[in-house]
């Protein structure tokens, strides 16, 4: 993952397996899978306002947010940066790292000081290609993360709070 801004490069002395278990993504994965992932990962501290990923650029790592909050933003001409979604601890950042064409679908910015467990996209992709058992274990979690985001986005798309139900002969507050 390419970092901009004030990134602390040094890994925090934390057991990566423990960190994995602190996320719904990694919790409950078989111990051997966690061990494999741990060899590819490190924990990074990301200060507030850091741009972690930019829309359209290559996502170099699959991130699991351990603490803090990051915003997924898209630039809309004449409206500026719009926050599409925020990611809370436990969730995935940069799933594009293992899904072709590996380009980020939004810009990711830390809106609080954050800790991220980063798994190297290159090594993870190679491992998933070479090891069907690992792939069968990890991909469902990735799919779950992506489908969760998809279904929530659909609810957002409904814009439920924008208008009220039309009932009877007029509009009513619910």
């Amino acid at each position, binding site marked *: 993952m390419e970092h901009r801004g004030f990134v602390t490069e040094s890994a925090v002395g934390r057991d990566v397996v423990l960190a994995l278990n602190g996320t719904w993504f990694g919790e409950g994965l078989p111990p051997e899978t966690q061990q494999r992932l741990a060899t590819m990962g490190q924990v990074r501290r990301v200060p507030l306002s850091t741009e972690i990923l930019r829309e359209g650029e290559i996502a170099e790592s699959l991130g699991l947010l351990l603490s803090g909050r990051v915003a997924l933003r898209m630039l809309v001409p004449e409206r500026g940066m719009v926050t*599409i979604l*925020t990611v*809370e601890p436990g969730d995935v950042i940069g799933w594009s790292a293992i899904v072709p064409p590996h380009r980020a679908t939004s810009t990711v910015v830390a809106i609080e000081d954050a800790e991220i467990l980063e798994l190297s996209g290159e090594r993870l992709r190679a491992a998933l290609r070479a090891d069907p058992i690992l792939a069968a274990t990890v991909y469902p979690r990735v799919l779950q993360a992506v489908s969760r985001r998809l279904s929530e986005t659909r609810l957002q798309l409904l*814009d439920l709070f924008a*208008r009220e139900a039309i*009932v*009877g002969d007029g509009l*009513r507050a*619910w």
Partner: protein
Amino acid sequence: MTSATQPRADGAARSARPDQPDARFLARADLGALIDALRAEGRRVIGPVRRDGAIVLGEVAAADDLPAGWGAEAAPGRYRLIRRGDERVFEHNAGPTSWKAWTFPASAPLTRVAAAEGETTYEPAGTDIRPLAFLGVRACEVAAILVQDRVLLGGPYVDEDYQARRGSAFIVAVQCTSAASTCFCASMGTGPEVGPGADLVMTELDDGFVVERASAAGRRLLDRLPTRPATEEAIADAMTAVGGARATMAGQPGVQIVGLKDRLLARLDDPRWALVAERCLACANCTSVCPTCFCTSVLQRSELVGTASGSTRTWDSCFNPGFARVAGGNFRSRTRDRYRQWLTHKFATWVDQFGTFGCVGCGRCIAWCPVGIDVREELLAIAPPIAPSVLRPSPAPIAPTPQEFGTARVTATRHETRDVVTLVLGDLEPALLMTKPGQFVMLTLPAFPRLPISVSRTRSDGIELTIRSVGPATDALTRLKPGELVGIRGPLGTGWPIDAAVGRDVVVVTGGIGLAPLRPLVDAVLADRSRFGAFRIYYGARTPGDMLYRDELASWMASADVDLHLSVDRADESWLGPVGVVTHLFDKASWDGSKSSAFVCGPERMMQATATALFDRGFHGDRVYVTLERHMECGIGLCGHCQMGRYFVCKDGPVFTLAQLGDIFGREGI
């Protein structure tokens, strides 16, 4: 024999029995005729007798055996006979024995085992008893007999010995005309008026007894007694006397049974269990004197020659050290665990098992506890009832017809967002000042349709309504100025059942203007904060600028009493809080929904998504409350607009549990 009632969950007063027109009067001098008639049927008559410094239950051969002129005083750890200045025979309350000594004796033979010529046989010991008659069974004790009926006869397997004894018993009940300091039948809903289960019901006066039949057998017996019609005066005296016992109990501690089961089970870790265990001797007196305790053990006795043995059922007690012992350990080795087992069984788990409380309020366990432990006091400390601010009766609405409307005056207005206004209404009928959280009112302005509007706060001097301008009528309402009048009917509908959440974690999930009907619930929980577990609020809005009550949100955010989470559907860079649907905030949370009650309000599609996320968190449908919005013209169940399946949302709701709604919730076109 009936097992249909007792103790009543509502604790409601029932009318004193002697209001029946065919009540009879039995002169005191003719009481012996009643005993003779029962004995003539071949029955052993059991009634109160004075023995060993107490009024106990024993065999009665004649009226002279009854404790004429004796009464008893009872208090925690104390029981004393007193000499009265009259000749009354039933003017005392529950003594140390109860009728279970005859229906369910402390010791009863079960099985005979014989071994001969290589064969071992098991034979039921059988029950060979004379029919029984119980004379002077108090209301709480009739209730206790029905409780034991449920336990020993109401399931798929019955206790045959109990069945035989109980089935033979003719019950002459007596309504109490005084109450000891230990009595609390009124709060348990079992007395002092005698409910179903008796054959005859008597109320004692100075010169005799008002007697009523309460069964066909009771009528047949009564017909053979030398009675005359009870005068209106005697009936009135009897009712007044029973009312006096009720009044005495109203002035002394009782048990608040509403919500008790849930409150108690939420307190399994209360430090009070250890405190009461410091006093409790685990002597089992309470279970011995309790008229409903039914636990037994089986004793085996062998003859010395070794060819025959017999087993005997004996009363046991959950306080006895070996009660929960197994090879290798004891599940309840500590007194605190045993006391907790007893109290939570009587007042909570019994309800799940048998549909009633296991306590009838006789007070025996209080009087006969050697150290004076009072269950009423322990329950109050461990599972306190909810404060009146939370639990109060539903007020009757003002203007409860389709034609009528009252008026209210706007005393203040406040802009919440660009299209949402909060109106403060004053000059209200008192009923509106008693609006419960979750209730609504119908509002009307001349020439506009009538609208249901949730009450967003109940104040001492008025109510608040938070209204979003979405059409001509709501637009007119949001433009009202202080001093103007509005037509009003209410309060209407069910409220949030906050009492059912006492002792549990509370989760509020809401979106947009849905926070308005939930704000009174937040007020109520914060006003009684210690009665609830963790309090989590998840509030979603379209944009940060669409959030209601922003000052209050800020204070809740800063408060340690609430765990508030805000989310918006869209935001610019200045918003650093969460963006996304509100369920995004808790669908992967770690807290345990099985210990929580959830209150949800928002667009139905949002509530559906919330329900799914809550079920994933371990919630049960009967612990998730939603409030529904429907077209309403009247608000009182007459116009038919708000029908949803078998409900009218206005009067059966608007608050429902998801379990109530079942699969009609969120279904298209219902």
